[in-house]
């Protein structure tokens, strides 16, 4: 009996410890020299909350690359509301914007009151009272971050979004794979699926409710569609050969994918409702990694029809594919910016495989990342950042770079490899 209870205890301990380590942490790797100086004053009463709301806002704004938050140690004044803000004090600290606020217990939850001040304009920009409970305090902090970000930059904040990613451990035939969903800051990670066979290429439905992904759990690749909140799922395709690279259409009714059932990998479009697949590309080369344009009228895909992999754009209107990338001999896995004007991709440079950006209609290709083993770029729904997988110290980590290349951060996992990130659409 004693052995038994020890085993149980060990079970419980293992559960607890690994839950904590499933989260990703953030390291800022490059700060933008054009970041706006902002002060986020610790909320009055914030010490009674289970989360440091002002710190979460600080981290969010800093990570975006648009802001350079003032360190707390430099704040010798800590106002909690607009009326108490001494503009001269903050101007002398070279702060352009200031966030003040307070937290109060109310019933079972909390009331968070924040105000955003324009220091140089000496005015209050916005303010709001947000209610939250212990379980969604972080979400409330992300919401406040979104409001601040949009008010100052005129760009919708993406702090309340999520990322899906794949983890892997082990080698060869003894591997474990996991599909996880976490908040955009790497916290609150939740398991979607685990398997001892590969899991790949998660893709969010446009409403953010479902993930399509590739799983080898039947010993061959098949594409599944899984509801993120209920866990319910269906096998969408399991043709002979490759079933890969699922990409949702903007209307959520179709999924573009790569299938090799008729020979080499070609792009097909699955109609989710009636399960029919329509072949899009007709070619004796590899065609894979489709991505839908935001207007739904065209698809990017990778093809080696010219020799090495290059990115092509297929027009659904006329069925023609035209080559988009011409710089270097390896460009793959293109993804549109949310406005459809630019594409993000993996480019093989003299240094290695790097995240790059190019105008959709051609033009100069700009390398954005400094790392050289990059894969799987995925664009934030507001277009400000690109998350991707890369290597750090021999292990797979997630990294993100701003769309202009000026700032970047990394999200290493406590253990194992992390890869294949997919940034969710806006969720509210």
């Amino acid at each position, binding site marked *: 009996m004693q052995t038994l209870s020890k085993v149980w205890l060990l079970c419980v301990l293992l*559960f607890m410890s690994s839950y904590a380590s499933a989260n990703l942490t953030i390291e800022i790797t490059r700060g933008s020299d054009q970041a706006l100086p902002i002060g986020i004053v610790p909320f009055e009463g914030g010490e009674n909350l289970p989360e440091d709301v002002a710190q979460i806002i600080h981290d969010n704004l800093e990570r975006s690359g648009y802001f350079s938050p003032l360190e707390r140690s430099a704040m010798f004044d800590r106002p909690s509301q607009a009326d108490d803000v001494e503009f001269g004090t903050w101007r002398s600290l070279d702060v352009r914007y200031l966030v003040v606020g307070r937290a109060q217990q109310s019933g079972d939850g909390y009331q968070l009151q924040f105000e955003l001040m324009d220091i140089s304009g000496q005015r209050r920009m916005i303010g709001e009272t947000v209610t939250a409970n212990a379980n969604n305090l972080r979400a409330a902090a992300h919401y406040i971050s979104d409001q601040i970000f949009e008010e100052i930059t005129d760009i919708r904040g993406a702090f309340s979004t999520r990322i899906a990613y794949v983890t892997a451990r082990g080698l060869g035939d003894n591997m474990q794979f996991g599909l996880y969903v976490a908040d955009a800051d790497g916290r609150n990670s939740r398991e979607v699926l685990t398997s001892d066979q590969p899991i790949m290429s998660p893709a969010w439905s446009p409403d953010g409710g479902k993930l399509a992904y590739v799983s080898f759990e039947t010993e061959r690749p098949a594409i599944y569609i899984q509801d993120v909140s209920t866990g319910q*799922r269906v096998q969408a395709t399991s043709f002979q050969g490759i079933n890969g690279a699922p990409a949702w259409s903007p209307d959520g009714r179709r999924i573009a994918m790569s299938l090799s059932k008729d020979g080499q990998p070609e792009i097909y479009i699955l109609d989710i409702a009636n399960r029919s697949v329509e072949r899009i590309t007709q070619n004796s080369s590899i065609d894979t990694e489709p991505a839908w344009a935001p207007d739904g009228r065209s698809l990017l895909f990778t093809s080696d029809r010219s020799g090495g992999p290059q990115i092509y754009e297929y027009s659904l209107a006329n069925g023609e594919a035209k080559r988009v990338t011409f710089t270097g001999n390896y460009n793959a896995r293109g993804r549109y910016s949310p406005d459809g004007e630019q594409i993000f991709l993996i480019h093989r440079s003299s240094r290695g495989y790097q995240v790059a950006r190019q105008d959709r209609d051609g033009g100069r290709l700009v390398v954005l990342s400094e790392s050289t*083993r990059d894969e799987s770029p995925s664009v934030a729904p507001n277009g400000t950042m690109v998350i991707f997988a890369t290597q750090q110290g021999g292990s797979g980590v997630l990294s993100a770079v701003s769309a202009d290349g000026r700032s970047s951060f990394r999200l290493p996992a406590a253990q194992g490899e992390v890869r294949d990130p997919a940034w969710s659409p806006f969720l509210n």
Partner: protein
Amino acid sequence: MQLKPLARSLAVALSIVVIAGCSSTGGTQDGDAHGSQTGSTTGTGTSGAGTGQYGSTTGLGTGSGVGAGQQADSRIPEVRTIHFDFDRDTIKSEYESVVMAHARYLRANPNSRVVLHGHTDERGTREYNMALGERRANAVQRFLNIQGVSPSQMSVVSYGEERPVASGQSESAYAQNRRVVFNY
């Protein structure tokens, strides 16, 4: 006496939990995933030999190979992995004898089936590598077919860069990972 097997099965359950990465999500979506795990975890742990943890591919020679006094062509060839150059799917001359041995075995054993697993190194994008892995396995399948092996005995699964056997960013690790494996 009764406790022992119970404790052992708990330990197995525990090892599954450990391997699974100990997620804390309880009920909802785990059904399929955990089902497939229990099936294979017991297999992988014991038979370190490797590939084919699931029932469909028969026990990797452990069963068929031990019988003494068998003819050479009635035994699955021992070398079951061949390697490729970077960005290439051509079978190197040094591996032709390996593929020929598999061709002889498959011709001599028409009821035997092989799944050709194609793999790449980690460089480049994952889905493009999936296509390159398939190209390698297809090249071996074509070769076997030319040697008279029936297409009905062969199938191809590409794993791309998803199942490396060697870790690290060295050329030797990359070379080990660029391979096609014969799975019977």
